[in-house]
């Protein structure tokens, strides 16, 4: 992966920058020893690594503001970092950058059940937001798989989703307000506990901007009352196309399940070996979950089962107990781990129109043969968000590059059938160079114009999102 050449002038001034940062931050919040900055050399996309010049861990919005003001004055790039769980390299440093870790800012500032909101510092982890309100039977809806570790700051940066967004939406649909520090150190507040921030929807464009527009330090989030209950049904089919048709028929019937998960043969087998979830031996497996009272669940599942039966399932199993539900989900939730046990893998997350599912799966199968690399598919089928997992051997020379080329072909395929490169992981560096496949020059120009307004010197989270050749003129002009 090509990265811009580190600015030698910035590297030379490391000590001067360090001194200025130490004037505004406590000593334990500034990491400068190369042995320690190494801890920030990568995120969850571990194939790419580069230790930053410095790392800082501010504890207040004021400290974040001081750091950004200083870095802006010194012309030093800043890479904001939540918990470092990005699968797209969204928090990958450059050698001349300062990592700004938000982890120390993890307080709950306000919980307000009457108005159904929570206000938190953004270093707080996703799951601990729900943790703060579950005693009152509330929850925070977006549930990325990394929710135990990932920070709200990163969720906002990447507009994270999860398995339950078919019903509850993704981060942007659950974010009501932010306090954000701009690269020049100024602080803006947008939105709040009221609905629909006034004026232009800046909140909407900040969410998912991959930390390139500002550093969000506080967020007002919508919290929801937990449903009375939830229950999954598991169904197996002998044909991907039939499973895809079944998904479409369920949605058309007027039922809105909270989750529809899809797994193909390789994943089913891997998960079964790993978790003994009792999955059937078949080509396509669906887990469909609905919510409500016992009677409501019974009604919805009976309708879903009636639809499924029309498609001749080889297996149809309605969960009879909480234990069985947990077991059904255990298999799905351990999919990545199970595949990881078989080999190294690369996880993609292109989205496709649900109707293109059979065509895309068929083509992925063909490509898998051509490249000689196995692919397992897990899939949020309700919203078309695919997760092909390409298996490869990192120790085998050339395998990673082959895997990346294969991955790029799959993502281009997703775009070509009417979908997109990434449904919930973000572009980061991983999909940066594919952006031109999805967007024409004028489309990218419009996005970069927004960046120009928020971060005129192009210092925030460098080398992400936009292909380097597309952003080159701006980066040079800013230097």
């Amino acid at each position, binding site marked *: 992966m090509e990265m811009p050449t580190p600015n030698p002038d910035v590297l030379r001034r490391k000590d001067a920058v360090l001194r200025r940062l130490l004037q505004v931050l406590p000593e334990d919040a500034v990491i400068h020893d190369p042995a320690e900055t190494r801890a920030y050399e990568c995120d969850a996309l571990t194939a790419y690594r580069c230790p930053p010049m410095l790392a800082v861990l501010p504890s207040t919005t004021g400290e974040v503001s001081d750091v950004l003001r200083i870095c802006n004055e010194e012309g030093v790039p800043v890479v904001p970092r939540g918990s470092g769980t990005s699968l797209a390299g969204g928090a990958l440093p450059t050698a001349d950058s300062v990592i700004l870790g938000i982890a120390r800012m993890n307080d709950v500032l306000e919980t307000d059940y009457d108005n159904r909101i929570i206000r938190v510092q953004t270093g707080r982890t996703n799951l601990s937001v729900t943790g703060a309100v579950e005693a009152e039977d509330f929850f925070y809806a977006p549930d990325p798989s990394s929710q135990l570790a990932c920070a709200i700051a990163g969720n906002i940066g990447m507009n994270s989703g999860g398995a339950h967004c078919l019903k509850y939406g993704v981060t942007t649909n659950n974010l009501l307000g932010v306090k954000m520090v701009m690269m020049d150190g100024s602080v803006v507040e947008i939105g709040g506990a009221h609905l629909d921030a006034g*004026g232009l929807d800046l909140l909407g464009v900040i969410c998912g*901007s991959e930390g390139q527009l500002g550093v969000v330090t506080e967020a007002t989030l919508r919290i929801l009352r937990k449903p009375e209950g939830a229950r999954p049904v598991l169904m197996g089919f002998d044909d991907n196309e039939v499973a895809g048709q079944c998904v479409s028929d369920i949605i058309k019937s007027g039922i809105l399940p909270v989750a529809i998960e899809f797994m193909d043969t390789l994943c089913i087998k891997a998960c079964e070996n790993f978790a003994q979830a009792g999955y059937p031996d078949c080509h396509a497996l669906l887990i469909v979950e609905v919510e409500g009272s016992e009677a409501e669940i019974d009604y*919805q599942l009976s309708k879903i089962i009636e639809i499924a039966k029309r498609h001749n399932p080889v297996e149809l199993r309605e969960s009879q107990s909480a234990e069985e539900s947990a077991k059904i989900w255990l298999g799905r939730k351990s999919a990545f781990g199970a595949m990881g046990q078989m080999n190294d893998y690369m996880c993609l997350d292109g989205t496709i129109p649900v109707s293109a599912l059979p065509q895309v799966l068929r083509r992925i199968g063909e490509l898998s043969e051509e490249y000689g690399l196995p692919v397992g598919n897990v899939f949020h089928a309700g919203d078309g968000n695919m997760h092909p997992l390409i298996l490869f051997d990192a120790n085998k020379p050339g395998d990673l590059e082959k895997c990346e080329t294969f991955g790029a072909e799959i993502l281009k395929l997703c775009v070509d059938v009417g*979908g997109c490169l990434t449904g919930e992981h973000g572009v980061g560096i991983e999909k940066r160079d594919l952006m031109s496949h999805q967007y024409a020059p004028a489309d990218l120009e*419009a996005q970069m114009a927004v960046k120009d307004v928020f971060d005129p010197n192009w210092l925030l989270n460098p080398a992400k999102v936009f292909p380097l050749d597309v952003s080159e003129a701006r980066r040079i002009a800013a230097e």
Partner: protein
Amino acid sequence: MAEIVAGLQGPVRIAGGGSRGIGGPEMTIETGGLSGISLYEPGALTIVAQAGTPVAEIEAALEAEGQQLAFEPMDHRGLLGTNGAPTIGGVVAANISGPRRIQAGACRDFLLGVRYVDGKGHVVKNGGRVMKNVTGYDLVKLMGGSWGTLGVLTEVSLKVLPKPEAVATLALRADDVSEAVAVMSAALKSPFEVSGAAYDPQEMRVLLRVEGFTDSVAYRVEQLKSTLAGFGEIAEIDGSVERWQAIRDVSAFHGVDGDVWRISVKPSDATGIAQRIGADRTLYDWGGGLIWALVPKGTDLRARLGAFEGHATLVRADAETVEALGRFQPENAGIQALTQGIRQRFDPRGLFNPGLMG
């Protein structure tokens, strides 16, 4: 459209059907010529349409498949006394949502993709037609609710949802705003998926809406009755569809003299806000978070409000008042700078709906 914009010599008003009455320059670009549904996949819950497509045409197509625009866009014609057929582009450009916004989300939450012509005459697309998409910056949200100030929408794609099989409405008496907000908060805090919570002080009545499968609605109505028993007598009343349409369209103010303001606040602030504005008449939607206020012509409601968390939009007034007070809540300096910066880059010649926003 790109050619028209590129050839413009001066400012224009961007209009769909013209039903939202935004005012502005004489010269108008109407999007009505860009009409038609280009793609509708009920099994994928998505629809793509040209910006000038009448909302009625979209709603009819969805109705035929038992689906709907879940954000329940308001029809402004009755309130504003305008004519013309509301277009989907207009709904998107103004981010128009109705009572279901509290449960299902706003128009912008259902907007999946846009295509527009910017002020330089370039055709730009963002987003797409799939529900999950984080590829690049989300200009879809930025264009939604930008009131035509950043570009002329030519195509939009939207997520749609199943239309509920049944609807029920519960009514409770509430003597004042604070009592009403308390009832509505209790209902919205319950797990029974209330999809509408409105209060009319003149009738001293809170209305709550429950939607879904028939048995489920019946069940949740009973559960709500017992959950809210402490607030007084609760009755199920009929005419749900018409009642919520009236709330959506603010029918109570149709043909009644005076300026109309729309204020978005935190529901628990509604009581204090109501006292400050001293309006002739108010209506509350979104559990108290949306206040419709009717005041004498020319009233500077924002002066009465002072500093508050939220925003007040002048929806109906004569041109003079709009000119004097501004349609939208003035932003603080930081946000204003961002807004102006974005407008300047998207529309460097200042062609689109000048003076409308920021």
